[in-house]
Structure formats: structure tokens, C-alpha cells
């Protein structure tokens, strides 16, 4: 197969992916253990003026009750400005706050996954709600990128 054709395949495949994953949750991975991941998320949050509101240790909550360890924890992250903005512009978006992150333990380390903003963007197609969701999504992405760099 000629290199030009391979390039076309790659470009087409990239287009397909970009079309089909627009609404996917944000996700990053890093080769660290859960404890280090928690520390790094906390630092990344501070760097982006976000606050770690609550850590929900669903792994220990489940194992304590005799269930299998899912290797997951949930983090809630927020900012006062996000709450005030939602109160002012679209109170239904308070249901999305504080923002949730899931830490998933796997063989390679920890994967950090946000909620899927897609359904929310679909439900709120117009400004200002859409702008708010997009801003929170962008803020979350910047924080996740920072987490990877920590």
C-alpha cells in the first residue's frame, strides 16, 4: 500500500473518530497508584482554582460490606464561581455540581474519567447554559491535563 493511501486512511479514520466521540467523557491515564493519583488530582485542582469537595471511597465502602473491590473512587470537585453562575443563569445545572471524577485502578495505573457532558450539552443547546457546560468541560480538561503532568 502506498504511503499516500495510508495517509488517506489515517485522515478518514481520524475524522470518523472525531465525529463519533464528540460527547465522550474526558479521560486521562497515568502510571501511579491510587494514593499518588489522589495527591496529584488535589494539586491539579488547586492549580485551576478548583476545590476537592469530597472523596467517595466506593472501593472500601463495597469491600467493607463483602462486595468485590471495583478499584474505583469518586471525587467531587467544585468552585464557588460555578455554583453562583449556575444559580444565576440556569439553576437546573446545579444538578451537575460539584463536578464528578472517577478514578479507576487498572494494570497501567490510574485512569481518571469525567462525567459525560454530552447529554447535558444536548439538553441545553443555547447560551448561557451551553456556555457554562462548555466552560466547565474546558476547565475539567485543563485540570486533567495538569494531573497527567504532575
Amino acid at each position, binding site marked *: 500500500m*502506498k504511503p*499516500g*493511501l495510508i495517509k*488517506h*486512511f489515517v*485522515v*478518514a*479514520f481520524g*475524522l*470518523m*473518530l472525531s*465525529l*463519533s466521540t*464528540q*460527547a465522550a*467523557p474526558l479521560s486521562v491515564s497515568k502510571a501511579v497508584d491510587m494514593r499518588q493519583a489522589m495527591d496529584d488530582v488535589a494539586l491539579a485542582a488547586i492549580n485551576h482554582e478548583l*476545590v476537592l*469537595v*469530597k472523596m*467517595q471511597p*466506593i472501593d472500601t*465502602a*463495597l469491600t467493607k*460490606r463483602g*462486595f*468485590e473491590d*471495583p478499584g*474505583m473512587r*469518586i471525587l467531587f470537585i*467544585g*468552585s*464557588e464561581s460555578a*455554583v453562583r453562575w449556575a444559580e444565576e443563569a440556569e*439553576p*437546573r445545572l*446545579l*444538578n451537575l*455540581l460539584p463536578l*464528578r471524577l*472517577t478514578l*479507576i485502578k487498572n494494570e497501567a495505573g490510574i485512569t481518571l*474519567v469525567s*462525567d*459525560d457532558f*454530552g*447529554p447535558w450539552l*444536548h*439538553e441545553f443547546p443555547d447560551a448561557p447554559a451551553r456556555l457554562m457546560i462548555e466552560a466547565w468541560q474546558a476547565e475539567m480538561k485543563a485540570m486533567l491535563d495538569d494531573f497527567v503532568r504532575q
Partner: protein
Amino acid sequence: MIYRFHSLFLLFALFWTGAIAAADSVAMNRADADAEPMILTTTAPGKNIDQAVTALSQAIVNHNYTFVRQQSIDSRLVPYAEEVRSVRLVYFCNFAKMDRALRIDPRATQMLPCRVTLVETSSGVDLIAVNPAWTSQSMPALREVCQELKQDYLDILDEAAL
């Protein structure tokens, strides 16, 4: 020349396949979203927020869920004394259901733990939950679990509003 035509054809075919798949996915999601409301809500008339939290906590226990915690919407974001008192979040969980959902699809964490937002108004308290059947629109394996969860939410909200 023929080779170039083939590569262009392949490029077009791949692009078109991707575009159709994405359009189908969007259409399916839209149909699901239209079928399920985003929010489940009820009103507890004549109650203040503390009374509504108490009633909700009892309803949670009555439906075999465990109360996890309650907090204000701006908890830890502002000093305690400045927290908004009229909006509270109540979290709860049924661990067996959580275990089952996570085994089916780890993305179930997007619905965990269960949460009701209470908003005090002049006439009572609105109890609001995000419909898990709406949240799970892109997670077909979770549909059955989320329909059950939605029914649990409705039962709990109804009882808390009495």
C-alpha cells in the same frame, strides 16, 4: 490515475460511514433523551428544608437505601457560616445495586452515589433528582438497572413529599 481514484473513493467511503454512524448515534441519543425527562421532581408543600431532609432521609431508609451524607450546594467552597442554607444535597446508596451496576458498566459511577437536591421555596421544598434513565442513554447495558433506579427515585421522592 486509477489508484488515485481508488484512494479518493476509499476516503469518501470511510468518511461517509463515519458520518452516518455518528448521525445515527446522535439520533438514537436524541430519541432516548426525548423519551426520558432529564429531571425527576416533586414538591413537599408546607415543609421547611430541615423537615424535608428528615422526611427524605426516612424515605431513603424505608426503600432499603443507606443515607450517605448531606451538604449544602457550596459546601467547602465558602466558609461554613456563609453556605447557602436553602439548597441542600442529600446522597444515598444501595450497595448491592451499586455493585451490580458497576459490574455491568463502570460508567455507572456517573449516577453514584444517588443524590437528591432540595431547594427551599416560599411554598415548600422542591426535591429534584437527575433521572438515571436519562443519564444512561449512551450506556445501553445499564438501561434495565437505571429504569429500576428511576422507579426507586420516584418512590422515594413521593414518600418524602407526603
